[in-house]
């Protein structure tokens, strides 16, 4: 056991060393990247889809207006131009002006102008009646979008917002050509592709694969390095792992559980490079505030107090894609709580026995000792079922008997969002760009994705203040207040452990840096292959 563990640590360290060494090398041209994806794209239109199943095979065909720096995807503030040359904001933060690159053409030869960007954002922000747009609500701050000339796009905001630029950089905001939208309508892009991205669409076989070839006229000069890529659908996890092991695929971009990483490293040694990162996704325990016993704050607090987060971080990270203990903010972000701040929150204290004693006391006081609750969970292995089984065991330690119902996804959502026949349910928050002030709006009472039924004006008040806060210190202190209010005082919902992204890939895949989200930085223009060395 122990020696195996060491081997793994060394392997990971060697891998980390390798990947940092890679940046210094001169990129090589050529080769085709084979990647495996767990699910098929429901459609090719990023504007209406929300799944990585669309991003992984389709994002390489498109450009965005602005994007997260693919060479530094871990830094949420490093947003740079993709189709724009420069961008600037007025002093009041209300006017954003983008200068568009000249000489860019779509794959069908049509030159790109500001009109295309305008048409795209009109589709996203103000879709015509009957046309869907999945992230329309991200742009509530936008007053108008205009294109004063062929190379300028101006966004006029209703109020200044730190969430605006990250929202523009959302990886689903593929830029379409106005000509296509005018000629073929708003649904054409669901089945057809015409972008300005590093790769040109070749073919898509239903249920099997999507293929792209190099775009010789790509607007980032000298890129892409690859001759092409192929995204192969493999729904079964062991099939994906074995494909990488047997050389049928080079990389999987979503993430593997820790044991699969260990297996690949054990089987392939230095032919496998492992990149790991905290993941901007978290499972959130959602009590149903509308019915007993969860309408009692003492019971909710007891539920959170029973969870051994620090211990779980150790032993659960052996078997699940979760690891880091954190509050409501993505760990390692400047706005996230430090360990000293975290341990002040109920359920985060390091003295597990004291926490659980307190939980039992609260339950007794509330008259709910040995309470039985119904726990709605989603029938997805990683990490839902693993975390669910862990939670049930944690709650058992303080006398709560939770009956876990692992439901197929449609049933799970039906119960969470419609019938609400649960005492506690898993819910999750999973965002592409790390943008804590926007991300924590998830917890707001009455929000679109808030299904706990929490009623607390104080949470809304603190959040309003937070979103208007000017300085980083103010933001930080308000964020702490909000965190304390949500996780401790009202225990309206609480955090389990933050996800942990593990990407083992063939070592000859170079130039790819692990982002904190499986949606981000997937255009593949910066990836190259080094199969000879």
């Amino acid at each position: 056991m122990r020696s195996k563990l060491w081997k793994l640590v060394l392997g990971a360290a060697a891998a980390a060393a390798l990947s940092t060494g890679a940046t210094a090398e001169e990129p090589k041209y050529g080769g085709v990247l084979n990647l495996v994806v767990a699910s098929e794209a429901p459609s090719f239109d990023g504007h209406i889809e929300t799944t990585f199943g669309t991003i992984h095979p389709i994002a390489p065909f498109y450009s965005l207006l602005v994007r997260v720096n693919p060479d530094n995807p871990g830094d949420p503030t490093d947003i740079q131009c993709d189709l724009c040359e420069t961008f600037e904001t007025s002093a009041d933060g209300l006017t954003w002006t983008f200068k568009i690159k000249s000489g860019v053409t779509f794959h069908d030869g049509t030159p790109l102008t500001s009109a295309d960007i305008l048409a795209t954002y009109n589709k996203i922000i103000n879709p015509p009646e009957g046309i869907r747009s999945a992230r329309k609500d991200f742009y509530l701050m936008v007053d108008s979008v205009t294109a004063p000339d062929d190379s300028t796009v101006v966004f006029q905001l209703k109020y200044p917002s730190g969430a605006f630029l990250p929202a523009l950089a959302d990886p689903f905001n593929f830029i379409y050509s106005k000509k296509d939208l005018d000629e073929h309508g708003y649904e054409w892009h669901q089945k057809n592709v015409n972008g300005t991205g590093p790769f040109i669409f070749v073919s898509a076989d239903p249920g099997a694969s999507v293929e792209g070839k190099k775009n010789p006229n790509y607007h980032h000069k000298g890129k892409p390095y690859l001759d092409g890529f192929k995204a192969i659908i493999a729904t079964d996890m062991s099939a994906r792992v074995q494909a990488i092991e047997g050389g049928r695929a080079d990389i999987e971009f979503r993430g593997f559980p820790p044991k699969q990483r260990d297996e690949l490293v054990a089987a392939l040694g230095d032919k496998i490079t492992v990149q790991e990162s905290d993941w901007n996704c978290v499972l959130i325990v959602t009590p149903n505030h509308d019915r007993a016993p969860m309408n009692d704050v003492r019971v909710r607090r007891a539920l959170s107090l029973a969870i051994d987060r620090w211990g779980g971080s150790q032993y659960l990270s052996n078997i699940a894609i979760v690891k880091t203990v954190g509050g409501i903010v993505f760990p390692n972000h400047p706005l996230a709580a430090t360990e000293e701040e975290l341990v002040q929150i109920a359920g985060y204290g390091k003295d597990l026995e004291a926490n659980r004693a307190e939980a039992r006391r609260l339950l007794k006081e509330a008259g709910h000792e040995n309470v039985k609750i119904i726990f709605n969970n989603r029938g997805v292995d990683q990490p839902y079922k693993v975390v669910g089984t862990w939670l049930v065991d944690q709650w058992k330690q303080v006398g709560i008997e939770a009956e876990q119902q692992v439901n197929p996804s449609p049933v799970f959502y039906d119960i969470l969002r419609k019938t609400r026949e649960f005492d506690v349910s898993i819910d999750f928050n999973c965002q592409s760009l790390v943008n804590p002030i926007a991300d924590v709006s998830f917890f707001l009472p009455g929000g679109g994705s808030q299904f706990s039924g929490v009623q607390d004006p104080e949470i809304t008040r603190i959040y309003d203040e937070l979103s208007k806060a000017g300085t980083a210190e103010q933001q930080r202190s308000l964020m702490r207040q909000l965190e304390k209010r949500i996780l401790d005082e009202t225990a309206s919902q609480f955090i389990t452990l933050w996800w942990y992204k593990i990407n083992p890939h063939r070592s000859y895949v170079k130039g790819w840096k692990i982002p904190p989200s499986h949606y981000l930085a997937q255009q593949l223009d910066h990836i190259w292959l080094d199969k000879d060395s």
Partner: protein
Amino acid sequence: MWQYIIKRLFLMIPTVIGAAVIIFILPRLMPGDICELRYAESSNYSLEQVNLCRQTLGLNDPVLVQFGEFLWGIVTFNFGDSMWTGRPIIHEIGLRFELSLQVAIMATIVSVAIAIPLGTLSAVYQNTWIDYIVRGVSIAGIAMPSFWLGILIILALLTVSEAMTGTRWSPPIEYVPIWEDPLYNLSMLIWPALATGYRYSAVSTRMTRSSLLEVLREDYVRTARAKGLMEKLIINRHALKNALLPVITIIGMEFAFLMGGLVVTEQVFNLNGLGRLLVQAVTQKDYTMTQAIVMIIVLVFVFCNIVVDILYAWLDPRIRYS
């Protein structure tokens, strides 16, 4: 004879309608909704978008209208578009049907290649150690869960290939039609065909054995024996030929099942076949797709059934008049 065939064809109509009713109702009794699911991955859930999606897909139409459209689709063999991908169902099914058909044919060949020689051996040497070994080996095939057998096969390939060549080899994970690249195609499909063929050979081995035992007791075989013909000749010339009819029936029925029933094997070997599509369609609540695949499977089954029945009626005139 024609009268019998026409009668059989007419009897298939209630079966098809009955199956259509069940597959229309059953998925609609399952809780949940394709539009909820489509927007489930994101935490930015918007009721407005879900309703819009329901409207676009026709889920808000009256149930009877939906059923009418479905029935008309069966009659005209036009099943419409998949609710999940929006692409025409015929287009979605095309490639997968091809793959499933090839695996079913290959698995059937493997199954026959195992069952007939082993069943014959087992019958000829009834109650000797040869019989015991054959039966033991054949039953062992169905004793393992299919996903377990599949995973073990892939693991064995990875390990053995490394021991022999130094690099790890696993079967391709992407289907290429056999006429484009036969070697690549076979190197992918041979493994699931072997696994499935071996599993399904158990029943036909058993059938070969018992019907051969029966035939070997018939008078004409005894006569042949009495005439002093060689045992091998008797079995090849006389007995086996007559014993094979029920075996062929079993194989026909299994073939119908293999077309859509290899759900688990397809997952493990990453085959983009009908079974995997069916499970996906059911779990994603893609009604149109589920209905279409189930009806295709039912039609294949009913068709195989009729062929077998007619074959029997042709060989055994008593059935026709009962």
